[in-house]
C-alpha cells in the first residue's frame, strides 16, 4: 500500500511540475499582498522601511471613520452599484429578449457586434470621448446640442450634480452589450417546444415573453444580481477616475473607495490611511461575497457558486 501511493506520487511529479509557475505567480501576485494587510495597522515611514515602521493598532481606522470621507466613499460606492445593478439588469434583459426575437442571423450578428464595441474600449479612450462631448468650450454638448435645445452651457467638469447621471449612463453604454449577450445565451438555451406549444394555444408575443422567457431567465438573473451584490463594495476604478478626469470639484459624487485608496497612496502620500480604506473594502467585500453565496444556497442551491 505504502509502495503503491509512493508510485502514484512519483508518477504525478510531472503534473506537480506543471502547476509550479502558475502557483508561484499566484503566491507572489495574490497571496503575498494578503499578508501585507498589516500595513493598515502601521504608521508607514519610508525612512524606517515598511517592516520597521511603528505599530499603531486600529488608529488608522478610527481616524478614517472620523472623517467625512469614509461616509461619502461608502455611500457613493454602494449607491452607484445599486443603480448599476437595477438599470443594467433591466436593460440587459430587455435587449437580450429583443436580440433573441430578431428574424435573421445576419441582423443578430450586426447588432450584437456593434453593441459590444464599447466594452472593448479602454477607460482612457472613453475619457477622451467624454471630453469631446463635455469640454466646456469646444465640446459637442455645449457647442451644438445644448444651444440647439435652447439651453445654457454647463461647466461639466465643475458641476458635481450632473455626474450621477453621466456615470450611470456611461456605465450602461459600456456594459449593455456584455449583459445582453449573457442573457441572450440563456434565452437561446430555452426549449423551443415551449414557444411552439404557446403559439398553438394562441398566446401573443407579450404573453410568451411574460410567461416563458422571463420565468426561464429567473435563475440566471438571481445569480448575476447576487454576484453583483457580493461586489457592491468594489467600483470600476476606470469609470470613476478616468471619466471625471480626476477633477477635484467632482469628488462629492465621483469619489469611491477605489479612487480614494488611489489618491491616498499616489497623490496625498497618506499610505496608512489608504491601506486602512483598502483593507476595509477587502474585508467587507469578502463578507458580502460569502453572505451572497450563503443566500443563493438557501434560495436555489443548484446555482451556488462554491
Amino acid at each position, binding site marked *: 500500500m505504502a509502495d503503491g501511493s509512493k508510485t502514484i506520487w512519483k508518477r504525478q511529479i510531472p503534473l506537480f511540475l506543471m*502547476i509550479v509557475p502558475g502557483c508561484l505567480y499566484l503566491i507572489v501576485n495574490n497571496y503575498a499582498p494578503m499578508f501585507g494587510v498589516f500595513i493598515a495597522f502601521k504608521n508607514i515611514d519610508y525612512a524606517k522601511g515598511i517592516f520597521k515602521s511603528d505599530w499603531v493598532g486600529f488608529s488608522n481606522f478610527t481616524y478614517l471613520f472620523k472623517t467625512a470621507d469614509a461616509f461619502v466613499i461608502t455611500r457613493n460606492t454602494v449607491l452607484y452599484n445599486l443603480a448599476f445593478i437595477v438599470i443594467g439588469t433591466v436593460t440587459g434583459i430587455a435587449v437580450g429578449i429583443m436580440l433573441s426575437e*430578431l428574424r435573421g442571423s445576419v441582423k443578430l450578428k450586426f447588432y450584437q457586434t456593434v453593441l459590444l464595441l464599447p466594452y472593448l474600449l479602454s477607460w482612457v479612450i472613453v475619457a477622451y470621448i467624454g471630453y469631446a462631448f463635455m469640454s466646456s468650450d469646444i465640446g459637442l454638448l455645449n457647442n451644438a446640442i445644448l444651444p440647439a435645445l435652447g439651453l445654457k452651457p454647463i461647466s461639466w467638469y465643475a458641476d458635481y450634480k450632473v455626474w450621477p447621471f453621466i456615470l450611470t449612463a456611461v456605465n450602461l453604454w459600456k456594459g449593455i452589450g456584455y449583459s445582453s449577450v449573457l442573457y441572450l445565451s440563456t434565452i437561446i438555451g430555452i426549449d423551443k417546444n415551449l414557444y411552439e406549444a404557446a403559439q398553438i394555444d394562441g398566446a401573443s408575443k407579450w404573453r410568451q415573453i411574460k410567461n416563458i422567457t422571463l420565468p426561464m431567465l429567473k435563475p440566471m438573473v438571481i*445569480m448575476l444580481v447576487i454576484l453583483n451584490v457580493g461586489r457592491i463594495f468594489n467600483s470600476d476604478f476606470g469609470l470613476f477616475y478616468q471619466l471625471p478626469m480626476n477633477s477635484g470639484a467632482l469628488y462629492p459624487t465621483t469619489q469611491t473607495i477605489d479612487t480614494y485608496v488611489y489618491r491616498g497612496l499616489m497623490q496625498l502620500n497618506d499610505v496608512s490611511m489608504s491601506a486602512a480604506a483598502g483593507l476595509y473594502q477587502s474585508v467587507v467585500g469578502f463578507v458580502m461575497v460569502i453572505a451572497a453565496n450563503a443566500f443563493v444556497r438557501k434560495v436555489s442551491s443548484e446555482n451556488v457558486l462554491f
Partner: protein
Amino acid sequence: MIQSRSETIFQVAINICLSFMVLMVIIPIWLLIAGSFTDDSALISGGYGLFPKVFSLSAYEYLMFKSKDILNALGISFFITTTGTAASLIITPLLAYPLSRKDFTARNAVSFFVFFTMLFNGGIVPSYMMWTQFFKIKNTVWALMIPNLLMNGFSVIMMKNYFAQNIPAELIEAAKIDGGGEFYIFYKVVLPLSLPIMATIGLLTAIGFWNDWTNGLYYVNDSRFFSLQNLLNRILTNVQFLASSTEISQRAVNMKLPSVSIRMAIAVVGVTPIMALYPFFQKYFVKGITIGAVKG
C-alpha cells in the same frame, strides 16, 4: 407561414429600438474619429462636430513622421501585449490542466488555492509596496506586464472546466499506454483539442494588456516606458491641469501639449488594432462572455 400583422409590428419595433441603440454606440466613437480628421484650428474655433468642418490629415502626418514618443509607446504596447499574452497562455493551461485531471492528488487543494484569489485580495496598497519596495519594478517594462495581468483565477477555472468537459479521460489513458509522458500528452493531445478555449482566453488576455493603463499609472512615471494608454492618460491629465489652472505657469508652457486633433488621432490609433481585428475574433469574444457566465 404567413406573418401576422402584430408580428410584423413587433419586428419593426425591436429593429427601431436596436437601431437607436446602435446609433448611441456609434456616434460617440464616430465623434472621436471625426475629430482626428479635422483641421486643428477649425476644431478649436468651431468645436467638435460629427463631420469635419475642415478635413485634414495633418494629425496623422504628425504621428507618422514627427513624433518619436508615440511610436515608442506603440512599440511598448505591442511588446507587452504579445509577450504578456504568450506568457499567460503558457502558465494558465499548465496550471489548469492538472486541476482537470480526476486522478491528480492535489486537485482539490490547488483548486481552492486558485479559487480563493477570486474571493479575497489584499488591496492595492500592499501590492504596490511589494512590487516597488521588494521587487523594484518601478519604471521598467515588467511593471506594465506582470502585476495582475499575467494570469487570474477566473481564466484558470474557465480553462480547467473546458479540459474536464472536452478531453476524454480515455484518450489520456490511451496515450499513457502508448508510453507518452505527461508533458508530451499535454502538448500533443490536450492542447491541440483545446484551441477554442486558448483562443478565447488569449483574446481576453490580449485585450486586457492592450487596454491596461492602471499598472502604468501606479508603477511608471518615466515616459520612455509609457504604453500608448499611459501616454494618452498623461496627455489628458495635462489637459485637465491646464483647464483648472487660472494662470499659465511655466510648467504649463513646458508641457507642450499636442493639439486637439493630434490627441484624437492618438486615441484612434489606440483603438484601431482592436477594431481591425474585432470582426475576426468576435466569435471567440462572444463565446468568452457566455462561458464566463457559467459558474466556476
